[in-house]
Structure formats: structure tokens, C-alpha cells
């Protein structure tokens, strides 16, 4: 996660403090491309929209299959 802290110089003619502490932190990036695909409401949307960092279901299934079968 990236955290950005900026020091911003305010306008001295206002009542604001001279230096303002501003925090803007991107927690989750926008969804793009294939992540925006829709599925039918009777299916698990997880198959189509995956949180970042979560192993896609099919990859997870293959991984477990490999571990179990040794293939």
C-alpha cells in the first residue's frame, strides 16, 4: 500500500495555517478490463470480479489439485 503525505503551502492572506498537512492514500486501485465483466446474478460474482491479491478460483483449484495428486 502506498501512503503519500504532502506539505502544502497555504495562502497567507487567508486565516488558514501557513503549512497544511494533507493525506491522500489510495487504498484500492480502480477495477479495469476483465475485472469489469458481469456474470449472471445466479452465479457467484467472485468468479468474475476478484479482489486484488486473491488467487483466482481456477488457479487455486489447479494448485490444490497439483498438491493432492502430485501432478
Amino acid at each position, binding site marked *: 500500500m502506498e501512503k503519500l503525505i504532502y506539505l*502544502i503551502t497555504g495562502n497567507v492572506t487567508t486565516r488558514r495555517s501557513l503549512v497544511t*498537512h494533507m493525506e*491522500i492514500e489510495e487504498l484500492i486501485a480502480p477495477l479495469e478490463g476483465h475485472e469489469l*465483466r458481469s456474470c449472471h446474478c445466479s452465479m*457467484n460474482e467472485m468468479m468474475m470480479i476478484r479482489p486484488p491479491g486473491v488467487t483466482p478460483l481456477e488457479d487455486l483449484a489447479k494448485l490444490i489439485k497439483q498438491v*493432492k495428486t502430485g501432478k
Partner: protein
Amino acid sequence: MVLSKYNVFLPLKNGGYIVYNTFSGATFRLDEEAVNALRQYSDGRTIPETSLAKLSRGHVIVGEDTDETAVFRVEHNKAKFASSVLQITILTTYQCNLACSYCYQGKGDVLRGVMSPSTVNKTLLFLKNEVQRRHCGEFSVILYGGEPMLNFEACLKILDVSRDLAKQENARCHESVITNGTLLTSENVAELYKRDIENVQITLDGPRDEHDHKRKYKSGTGTYSDIFKSLTLLNDLGIGIVLRMNIDKNTSVEGVSNLLDDLKKINLENYNTYFSALRCLTGACSDYAGMCLQDTELNILPALWNLCMEKGVNVSCRPNVLRVHCSSQTDSSYAVDPSGDIYKCWEFIGDVRHRVGRISDDGEMVDIKGSYYSWLSRDPTFFESCRKCQWLPSCGGGCVSKAYVKHKSYDFPHCGDIRYTMKYRLKAYLKQMFPNLPMNEHEESSR
């Protein structure tokens, strides 16, 4: 630049806000100074360029001349008419071996057709024609019913031909089965495994007593034990399992907790789950309507998501970011019934008023009905309530079928469960992803 109308602000306990943009799904944490700077941006406050770029990419700020409704409309139409992913749902049979209390099949086999070998062939020809015509790099085949395993021969043929087609066209093929789970055996599960089936979706209706009361054989016997045996078979081979958990007015957190404990006892390790409210969309199941939760009555969901997280169950609660409400609203999605008739939505299959065409012997969609064009021309940006709604990019204008049930026309919005549960989903998702975030559970800002 101005703040997007699709921003949702959630105040944090120690000051500052979470800003979630429903159009992009991007989420930022901003302190009060940053929010003020953004609100006054057009007055000339300085915001660092790198932050501006991220906020702009996340659609949190947009150009002053940007018509966000127009942006959504363009993206909506691209998703609707320019998708490179084909999705075809094939009902290998209308028949079912169960008589669930909320399903039309429980009312005495209202629909009974089985897909014949010749219809399987023309359906597969239709699939091939569509994949080639659209130059699909990816397509998905979903086997559905009735109970698709009652016509297992057709299932295997469809899976085999689809896989061969994917190789031939150098495309990626996703194959899945939606089954009640009562007919799975070591033999037929091995056949699915050999074909590298991507996942199997099975429904549970709650803990044992509740499930057996609703999801039962025609003899009246419950199916809980048999489904658990099937889950074990799938689990042993590492086949992906999706558990749909139906909820209604009987659902309790304690009951679902018992169900999750039962799943743990059989060492189920490779599954995802989601909760879905039971709906009565056909006349045959209307006598169950009194037990269904309305869209505005889904307050139990956050507790169920939290329960899953506490028990380490993989549950998805990330808020939707949708350009169309569901795949049925794209021109690249079809549902084919056992006779070869084509529908847009699974919910209406068998109701000929909603049939949009049929498959000819040479695998083309013919006899195209007016309903096809009515369905596909629905555009939520034409609805005033959708244009004004900050959640439009999360729901895509709602379910067409539910809009039809209520208004007898596709051309209406439907404010459904997505609209009413989205802020709960957002909070649950943030809790899942950032457990230490000081969320204010009871407050939402409308700024």
C-alpha cells in the same frame, strides 16, 4: 476538475474520510484537509500532481465539462455490444429430481423437456458459429437445468466439444456446472475432473433442518447429507466449489454458523461462497413469496459476511462495479433451453413470452422476437431515477426480469438488493481488506 457525482464518502472515527467511487471501484483515504482541497480545487488550491493523477484515474475527480451520465452510457453500451467474451448457458434438461418448496419443479414438473442429441449438436454448432463470428478469445459454458446431471451424456458432449473448440480457436474456455449436488458420484465426478471443469456450483438452504425442510427429494426426504457426500467427492479431487447459500426470513446467523461448522467438519477447503436471497419470479412459486426477504430487508448480510470472515471462509463482499447489471443484458450472452429456444435471462426460461429466438439446424439464431430488441435496448441512463443515483455504476440499472415482474415491461429501472446493500458491502469489504481501518459503523456522509 470537480468531485465526481459517483463518490461515496464514509467518515472515519478519527477524522477524515474513505472515498469510494462507484464508477471505478477505486477507494481512497483522505483527511479533512484533502477533502477540503478537492472541494475547493476549482478555486485554485494546490494538489500535488501525482495525487491528482491517481484521483483522476480513480474517477474521484473529473473534468468540469464531463457529463458523467454520458460516460456511463458509453461504457454501458460498450459492455453491452462490444464484449469479446461469449457466455452461453445450456439447460440439458428441464427435469429435476428434487421438489424444493420454493421452486416451480416442486409444483409437479411444470416443465419436463430433455435436450436431445440433435439439439445438443445444433447448440454446439451455434456456439462454434458465435465464437468464430465474434473472434472470441474467451468464452464460458455453463451447464444448468432443471438438474443438468439428469442428462449427463449431453453434459459430457458439451464439455468435450467446447474444449476442442477452444483449442481450435486458440481461445480460453471456462466450463462450469450448476447442480443440486444430489446426483454426483465418484464416477461422474471423475469424468468432470478429467475434463478439467472449472467449478461446480451447489446450493445450500441453511443448516440441516432448514435445508432439509426446503430442499428435498420428491419423496420428501431432505438432501443435506447427500449434498455433503458430493462436496466431499469434489473436494477430494480439488475441483473448485462455489456454494450458493440461499437466505430468506428463516435465516439466522446462528444457523449459518452451524452450517459453516458442518462444512469445516468435512474439511472443505477449496470453496467460495455467496449469499443470495430467495426470489419468487414465477407464478408457480408465488406461494413462497411470504418467506422471501424484500430487497430492503437484507440487513442480515453484514453479519453473515463478518461470520464468514471470522471463520476463514472465502466470501466476496467487494462492491460491484457494473457497466450492465448482468451478463443477460449483453448481446454476447444466451441461455438455451432443452428444445433449442433462446432466452436472455435464466429466470424467464420456459416462459415463451420472453423467448428471444431459436437455434436453427445449421446453428444460427433465427425467428428473432421483438423481446430480443426490447431487452437489449433498455438503457438505465434513460431513467431519471438512475441518472440521479450515485449507485448506478454499482447496479447497472437493476435486474430486467424483476423490473418486468413489477411493471410488465423491461423498460423500467429496478432498485434491487445491490442498491440497498451496497454500503454494507463496502464497509464489510473495507473491514476484510483493512482490518485496522477505524470505520465508523453507523454513520454515512452525504457530502
